[in-house]
C-alpha cells in the first residue's frame, strides 16, 4: 500500500495570551505524534474532548499552524508549506465540518457554495464548465438539480451536510478529512450520510480521515483506528483487533464506557470507570499522560514517556503492555 500522508513528531501548540509579567502558558493540543495514512483506507481518530483530534485535523488542512514536526503529503511538508503549496494541497485534501448548517454561508446559494472552491483554485475555468461540475457533483451526493438556486436555510441538516460534502468533492480530492461530520445529525439521517460517504469512497477511491467520538460509527466505517488522549497517541491498530483485543488501559476504559443498544449485554457488562478528570493540556502530566487516571499506573509511568511498541500488530504506547 502506498503512503499518502506521513506525520512525524507533529506538535500543535497554542499560546494563551498572558500579561507582561506572567509566565507564558502553552496549550499542548497535539504533543508529538507519529502516524501514516495509506491510500484508499479510512483511518478513524477517536478520543474524548480535549484530546487534540480536531486540532490535528485542522492542522493537516492548514486551519491551525503546525508548531513543529513534519507532515509529508505528496512530497509537500505541510509544516513548511508556502501559500502556493497549500493551494496544491487543498486541491487534493478537503475538509467536512461538524455542524452542517454553521459551515455554510447563509447569503450564498447552493450553486455558489459548491462552486466556490473551484472558482478560487481554478480562476480560469469557464462558467459553463463550473456549472456542469456543480451539477454532476450535486447528483453524486444525492441533491437534485432544481435545488441549485436555493439558500442553505431552506434545507434540513442532512441535506446541508450533503451540500458540505459536494463542496469538498467538487475538486476531486484524494483525501477527505471528516471532523465529527455525522455527530450533529439525527439517527435516521446519520445512517444515510454514513452510507453516502462509504459509496463515494468506493466510487472515487478516496482516502478518509474520520474523526469522531462515536465509537459505533468509527467501528462501522474505518479500517484502522488511532486512539488519542491529551495530545498523544495511545494505541493504533486495525479496527478488528482494536475492538476485540484492546491493549492500552485507556482504550479498554473508553470501549467499556460506550453503551450498546442491547439490554442483556449492558446488564452483563463490567464498566471500567475512569476516576477523576482529564488533566489540563496546559500542564500535561509528566511521563505517560494517562498515568494520573490509569488503573495500572506505577512509579515508572510518571517518570518517562513510554515509547511506541508493536504488540500483536498494534502500535501501543504503554509500559504495562508486553
Amino acid at each position, binding site marked *: 500500500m502506498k503512503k499518502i500522508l506521513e506525520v512525524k513528531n507533529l506538535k500543535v501548540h497554542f499560546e494563551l495570551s498572558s500579561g507582561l509579567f506572567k509566565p507564558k502558558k502553552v496549550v499542548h493540543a497535539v504533543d508529538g505524534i507519529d502516524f501514516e495514512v495509506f491510500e484508499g483506507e479510512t483511518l478513524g481518530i477517536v478520543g*474524548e474532548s480535549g484530546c487534540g483530534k480536531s486540532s490535528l485535523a485542522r492542522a493537516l488542512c492548514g486551519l491551525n499552524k503546525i508548531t513543529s514536526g513534519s507532515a509529508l503529503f505528496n512530497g509537500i511538508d505541510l509544516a513548511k508549506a508556502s501559500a502556493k503549496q497549500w493551494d496544491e494541497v487543498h486541491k487534493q485534501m478537503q475538509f467536512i465540518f461538524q455542524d452542517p448548517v454553521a459551515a455554510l454561508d447563509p447569503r450564498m446559494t447552493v450553486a455558489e457554495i459548491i462552486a466556490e472552491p473551484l472558482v478560487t483554485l481554478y480562476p480560469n475555468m469557464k462558467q459553463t464548465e463550473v456549472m456542469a461540475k456543480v451539477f454532476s457533483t450535486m447528483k453524486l451526493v444525492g441533491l437534485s438539480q432544481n435545488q441549485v438556486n436555493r439558500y442553505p436555510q431552506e434545507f434540513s441538516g*442532512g*441535506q446541508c451536510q450533503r451540500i458540505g460534502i459536494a463542496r469538498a468533492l467538487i475538486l476531486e480530492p484524494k483525501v477527505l478529512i471528516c471532523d465529527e461530520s455525522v455527530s450533529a445529525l439525527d439517527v*435516521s439521517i446519520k445512517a444515510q450520510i454514513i452510507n453516502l460517504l462509504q459509496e463515494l469512497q468506493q466510487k472515487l477511491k478516496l482516502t478518509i480521515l474520520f474523526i469522531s467520538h*462515536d465509537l459505533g460509527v468509527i467501528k462501522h466505517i474505518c479500517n484502522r483506528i488511532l486512539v488519542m488522549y491529551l495530545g498523544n497517541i495511545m494505541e493504533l491498530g486495525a479496527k478488528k483487533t482494536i475492538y476485540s483485543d484492546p491493549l492500552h488501559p485507556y482504550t479498554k476504559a*473508553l470501549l467499556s464506557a460506550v453503551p450498546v*443498544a442491547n*439490554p442483556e*449485554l449492558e446488564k452483563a457488562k463490567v464498566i471500567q470507570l475512569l476516576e477523576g478528570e482529564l488533566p489540563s493540556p496546559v500542564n500535561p502530566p509528566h511521563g505517560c499522560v494517562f498515568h494520573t487516571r490509569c488503573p495500572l499506573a506505577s512509579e515508572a509511568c510518571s517518570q518517562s514517556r513510554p515509547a511506541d511498541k508493536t504488540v500483536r500488530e498494534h502500535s501501543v504506547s504503554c509500559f504495562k503492555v508486553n
Partner: protein
Amino acid sequence: MTAKKIPLLDVRNLTVEFKVQDGLVRAVNGLSFKVYDGDIIGIVGESGSGKSQSMLAIMGLLAGNGKISGSVKFMGQELVGISTAKLNKIRGDKMAMIFQDPMTSLNPYLKISSQMTEVLMLHKNMSYKDALAESIKMLDRVKIPDAKNRVHLYPHEFSGGMRQRVMIAMSLLTKPKLLIADEPTTALDVTVQAQILELLRDLRKEFGMTIIFITHDMGVVANLCDRVNVMYGGWLMETAAIQIIFKNPIHPYTQALLATIPSLDHDVDKLKTIPGEPPNLLQLPAGCPFQERCSQVSAACTQNIPLRRVENRHVVKCANSNGVAL
C-alpha cells in the same frame, strides 16, 4: 409495580401546540402514558419528535406561545391549568428537572453555594447554615471531590461533567419523587457519561427516585432504563419494557430506528437507512406522521389510529399492528 397501583405520573391525551408565524405547530399530539414509582423511563426520538416539549409541558415550562391540553396527574393531583404559585410548590420540591447543558441552567454570577442553598431555604424553610451543610452533603454524594471548599466556587470553575453533577445534586436537595432528565449526558464524553449513569442508578436505589430520561441514544436506554417510550412527530409510537423493545419491536419506526444504529456488538456491511427526512410539524399528513417513510405503509395509515395494547404494558400506535384498542 402491579398495574393496580396508582401511577406516580399519569399523562392522558396531552397535546402541546405552538402558534408561530406560519401557522400552528403541534409538537405533542395526544400523548398518554403512565409512570410508576421507582421506574426509570427512557424517552427516545429524533429532533422534533416532541420528547422535550412533552416534558416541559408536564413541568409547566412551555414557551409563552405554547398551548397545552389534556391531563397530567402527578401523585393524584392535576397539573394542567393550576396556578403558577401552586405549581411552584410542586416543582423543585416533589419533581425536578435537569437539562442537557448545565452551564445554561446555572447562574454564572452566583456561587454554587448560594444557588444550592436557595432551593432548601425556599422549599424547606431551612436556615442558610443548615442549607449549606445539606448542600455540601449532597455534593459529596454525587462525588464532587473537596465539596466543602468547592461549594463556594462559581459554575465556570467546574468542568462539564462536574457541572452536570452539581445540577444533579441541586435537583436532589429536596429529595424529589420524580426527576426529569433532558439529555443530561449528550454533551458529555462517554467515560464521563458512564460515571453519570452509574451515579443516577445509585441515587435511584438510595432515594427510591423515579426518573424520566430523555435521550436519542438507544445504548443509554439499554444501559439505564426499565421502560422506553418511542416518539416521532409528536406521537407516542410504542412503549414497552426494554427487554421487549429491543427484542421484539412492533412499530416499523422502532424497528427501523434500531436497525440504523451502527453498533459495537455486531458488524454489517451497509447500514439500513430510513428514507426521507423527519416530518415538517407545520404540514403533518393526516393519520400517522411516519407514513411517508414507512416500509409497511397501507391505506389505513391516513386514518385515525388508536393506541393498541399488544400485551401487558406493551402499547403500539400503528394502523397495521394487532392488539386491543385502548
